[in-house]
């Protein structure tokens, strides 16, 4: 019976894959799947995403959504990854036990704030008080919903994750390495930046991957901040739509069961699932190998 409980998790994975595949790749006979209605080449290479229209104006090119997702993930990575790494270095190498005892719980709180709250924060604070004054004065035209705000907010969200995972791997670096560095006359900076970080590098990269996969899958903050217009653009001041935002946006209204629009949700979700799965698998493998090396 206990084995059954453990098996449920496998069953969940199987169910996810079954549902996504039967709706998007291979349909069960009376129903057709998404890719039997829309060709693969249109899905991946067409540059227009307009599933809500009908007739010749209907387009299923996933490129704008992928581009929007990558734009926001890129911005969030630029903000979240260096900040998280620096926090991890500070906590693991420099911080006094007292500073640690303050910072760690605060980071946990930051990690526990629901994403819809970050979305509100982005829409009502980051855009009007940070992005607008800064970039409008420089002459950019900034939209009320913009990718930059989404990226900044998601970047803040992944900081605690990067910090705590990287700190764990850095603390796992044996002290003998640090001491031999000092014995050779290295300064504290040399030890942390040239010994600890390189020897923890694979673990740090794994934490980066996990964080990026989280920002790809992030939904609410992005849907609130970055808007809902699928533009094929890399301009961070324009409004974009991510894969996740599209799914939420469509499901908010009534969707006709069995329509191509409904199946397109599954196709987009499948793309999302595969991307995050690959990233998670790689980082899991790196992290678990890492644990073995230093134990």
């Amino acid at each position, binding site marked *: 019976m*206990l*084995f059954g*409980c*453990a*098996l*449920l*998790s*496998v069953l*969940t*994975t199987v*169910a*996810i894959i079954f*549902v*996504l595949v039967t709706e998007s790749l291979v349909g069960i006979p009376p129903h057709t799947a998404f890719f039997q209605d829309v060709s693969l080449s249109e899905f991946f290479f067409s540059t227009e995403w307009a599933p809500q229209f009908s007739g010749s104006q209907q387009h299923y090119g996933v490129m704008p959504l992928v581009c929007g997702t990558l734009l926001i993930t890129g911005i969030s990575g630029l903000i979240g990854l260096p*900040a998280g790494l*620096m*926090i991890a*270095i*500070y906590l693991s190498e*420099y911080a006094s036990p007292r500073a640690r005892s303050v*910072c760690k719980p*605060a980071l946990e*709180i*930051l990690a*526990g*704030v*629901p*994403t*819809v*709250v970050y*979305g*509100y*924060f982005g*829409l*009502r*604070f980051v855009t009007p008080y940070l992005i607008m004054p800064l970039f409008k004065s420089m002459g950019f035209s900034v939209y009320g919903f913009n990718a930059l705000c989404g990226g900044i907010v998601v970047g803040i969200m992944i900081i*605690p994750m990067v*910090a705590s995972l990287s700190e764990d791997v850095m603390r796992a670096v044996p002290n003998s390495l640090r001491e031999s560095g000092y014995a050779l006359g290295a*300064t*504290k*900076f*040399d030890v942390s930046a040239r010994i600890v970080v390189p020897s923890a590098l694979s673990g740090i990269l794994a934490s980066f991957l996990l964080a990026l996969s*989280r920002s*790809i*899958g992030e*939904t*609410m903050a992005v849907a*609130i901040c970055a808007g809902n217009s699928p533009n094929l653009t890399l301009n961070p001041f324009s409004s974009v739509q991510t894969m*996740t935002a599209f*799914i*939420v946006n469509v*499901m*908010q209204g009534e969707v006709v*069961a*069995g329509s191509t629009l409904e199946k397109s949700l599954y196709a987009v*979700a499948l793309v999302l*699932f595969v991307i*995050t799965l690959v990233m*998670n698998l790689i980082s*899991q493998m790196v992290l678990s190998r890492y644990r073995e090396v230093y134990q």
Partner: protein
Amino acid sequence: MSLHGKIYERRLVWRHRIGLIFEWVCRIATFLSLGILAVLLFSIGRQAFGWLGWGFLTRSNSYEADQAGIMAGLIGSLWLVGLTAIMSVPLGVGAAVYLEEYAKPSRLTKFIQLNISNLAGVPSIVYGILGFTVFVRMFGLRDRPERFTCSLGFAQFSFELPLGRVVLSGACTLTLLSLPVVIIAAQEALRSVPPSLRHASLALGATKWQTVRYQVLPAALPGIMTGVILSLSRAIGETAPLAVLGAAAQLSFAPGRIHSIGDAVQHPSKILQAPFDQFTAIPLQIYGWINEPKAAFEHVAAAGIIVLLIVLLLMNGTAIFIRQRFQKKIRW
């Protein structure tokens, strides 16, 4: 001093300066992120100031911003988290006990373990899609929902198959979502129980099950509880999967068509009906208010966020309390 020594001395000064700059950059990054937390809480608190009161908690939503309330979402969230706990705790702890105490290190065990840690990283919106297909639509097996009535003698409740957008669908989805996290937390708690305890119990002639039931589980309980509460508090803030299920953002009644406390007392049978009724949740209401075009609703959304954060604070506080209270009692 030789020329070499001078160059070395000068470079050493610079090396220490760079080190100091680096340390301060790292320190500033840390405190900046804590500053963001403070700014976030302060800006939302300021927006919510004056909008949060007893009336806000007991009213349901309205088209007028100053008449809006969070009652439906608050009760809905409590139902969701309660049902999720009932389902995910036995399943999660069971799986953790199997993996930690019974499973032999084999390829299957390793696969299950890898699978669980991967499920923990699947975006929550994918769980929403899964829940929508499996629980709300039930794979579209029936075109029109069929109503079943179940009588318990003193009261009766009725439900439809496929379930539709009801509390139970939401709770099942959240269960699948939080299960991997519960399992991982419970596993860590079980791992922290020293093996000597198990050996002592087995040496006294207890069976494997008796050892697990009477020694290991009680010792791991505080850790399990803490992990469970933390993962449930993660689940209560989840918006995306519920939004994907198609749950309404705003309703004028709590699950079971309960409009007020008096309603629940006078018609207790309505409570039985609640798991099979439509629902909304706090984060869904917040999302609805954020999308509201009227400007005044941004204050309502902020007030809703404060309620959500207070609920989270209460849950996390309980977790910390349990950890502090019971950790002292056990001495290995």
